[in-house]
Structures are given as C-alpha cells and as structure tokens.
C-alpha cells in the first residue's frame, strides 16, 4: 500500500484527515509556539550576537560553586551571568503563560519522579558531552547550518524515539 493510498483510506474510510492523525492537537499551537521561541532567540542574537541556548546553563551555573578547572574555564565565567538571566527569564516566561492565557493554569505532570530523575541525569550528562541540546543543536545549530548539529539532532531524535517506544512496550505510561 503506497502512502497516498494509506492517506486516502484514512481520510475517506475513517472520516479523519491525515493532518488530524499526525497532529491530533492541531498545528497552530506548535507553529505559533515555535515562532515565539524563534523571536526570542532572534531578538537576543540581533541585539547581542549571543546564541540563547539552554544546556550550557547547567555547567556555567556550577562554575559559581565548583573550583574544578573544567568549570572555571574562561567561556563559562564570561557567559554564566547572562545564561542565568536567560534561564530565569525562561521560567518566568512560562509562568506568565500559565497565569494568563493557558487553559490549564498551573499544572503537574503525571510522568513518574524516577523517570524525571534518571532521565534528567542522562539529559544533563549527554547534552554537555555533546555540546548542545534541543535548543543549542536543534535551533541555533541547525539555523547556523552546522553539520555537527545536524548529526547530533538526528541522533538524539532517533534514540529518543526508540527509547520512548521501548518504555511504552514495557508498559510504562505515559
């Protein structure tokens, strides 16, 4: 069965469009959200030339407390203040959304704490080893046409998809 036939069957035999199957929550929250994120990054870049990315924030913030040479490197000491301001902005920006136009208001995840904990450790370790995360490699790196970032993005998406599906098969929900 070709792709066209598949979409045809879904559309006409099941009464649902292919779009509503691929994007059950619609496409506009994602497109508008992505546009707003991009405006934030672009605003910072045009005014300062800095790449507003996320994962370095953990290492640069550790540099306030740790004397280990790795964390005391020049680039961390120079960027730790603005990275902290950026991170606090991200937290408060999301809070503004929650208390203004969000249909949910404040909200709590149902993902188990042990997944947040173990997953968080791997995210912190892996993004620093890879020198980038979904924003560093995924937004700023790809927008800079960096092939390093392209390899990283393809890798973490493929591995993320495999991991999430394996967890689901093992009966872990959501």
């Amino acid at each position, binding site marked *: 069965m070709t792709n066209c036939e598949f979409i045809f069957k879904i559309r006409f035999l099941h009464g649902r469009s292919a779009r509503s199957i691929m994007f059950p929550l619609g496409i506009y929250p994602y497109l508008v959200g992505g546009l707003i994120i991009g405006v934030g990054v672009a605003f910072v870049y045009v005014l300062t030339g800095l790449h507003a990315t996320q994962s370095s924030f953990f290492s640069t913030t550790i540099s306030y407390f740790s004397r280990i040479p790795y964390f005391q490197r020049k680039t961390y000491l120079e960027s730790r203040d603005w*990275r902290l301001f950026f991170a606090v902005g991200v937290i408060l920006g999301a809070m503004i959304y929650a208390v203004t136009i969000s249909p949910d208001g404040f909200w709590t995840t149902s993902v188990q704490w042990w997944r947040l904990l173990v997953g968080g450790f791997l995210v912190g370790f892996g993004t620093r080893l890879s020198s980038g995360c979904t924003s560093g490699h995924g937004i700023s790196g790809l927008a800079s046409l960096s092939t*390093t970032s392209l390899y990283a993005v393809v890798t973490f998406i493929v*591995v993320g998809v495999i991991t999430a599906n394996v967890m689901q098969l093992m009966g872990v929900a959501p």
Partner: protein
Amino acid sequence: MNSRNVVLFVGGLVFGFGLAYGGMSKPEIVLSFLQLRDYGLLLLMGAAMATTFVAINIVPRFVEKPVLGGEFKPRTRTFNRNTIVGAVIFGVGWGMSGQCPGSALASLGTGNLPVLFGIAAMFVGAYVMGRFFG
C-alpha cells in the same frame, strides 16, 4: 545590571512563553512525539529554527554588528565522537522522561514542581560530565 543581561532576561521570557504555548512544558506532549503519536514537535522546532535562521543568516547582511556590540558569528561546534555519544545519552534521557533543558525550566514555571527532580538531576549530570569526563 547591564543591558546585555536585560536583553537575555527579556529573550528568556519570550522563549519560555513560546515553549509553554507550544506545549513543550508538558513532558507528556514531548513523549507523544517520541512515541510517534503527534508530530507537532517537529513543526515547533522547524518554526523556531526558521525564525532563528533569518536572524543568523539574513540580518547580518543588512546590519554590520549586533546593536549592543560584539559580533555576528554562527553557532558552530567541532564534530567528534562526543557529539554522537553525548547525543545518544541525551536521547535516552529525553525518551525516558520527555524533558530537555529548556522544556524542564519552562515546566517549572508552569507550576510543575516534580520537574525539580529532573532539573536537579541535570545539574548533577552536567557536574559528573565536567568532573570526570571534561
């Protein structure tokens, strides 16, 4: 407080608002992409990337340098084994928990206190990486 930090703070507000607006503050929605039930995350990433692309590649043709000084320089990183090994480890953590660094911070802002487990663990992960593998 210097003007650069103010710009980063305001940029962060916009960034965090956009993340939450696009649903990324919910690990459930990130997981729905990774479980291939909702491809919206790719739209969000594409829209963010396209807007950033304009700032990095088009704006510098018309504006010589950043408004507050400094220089325009695309974000490049040297490719090596760590790029891939790190991305694999990150992918496992992402697929397990539905969190990445930015989305976890935004999630905290939307009142999701359990994500503090994740954020604390990210600090530990970044520390262990720098301490033993840096």
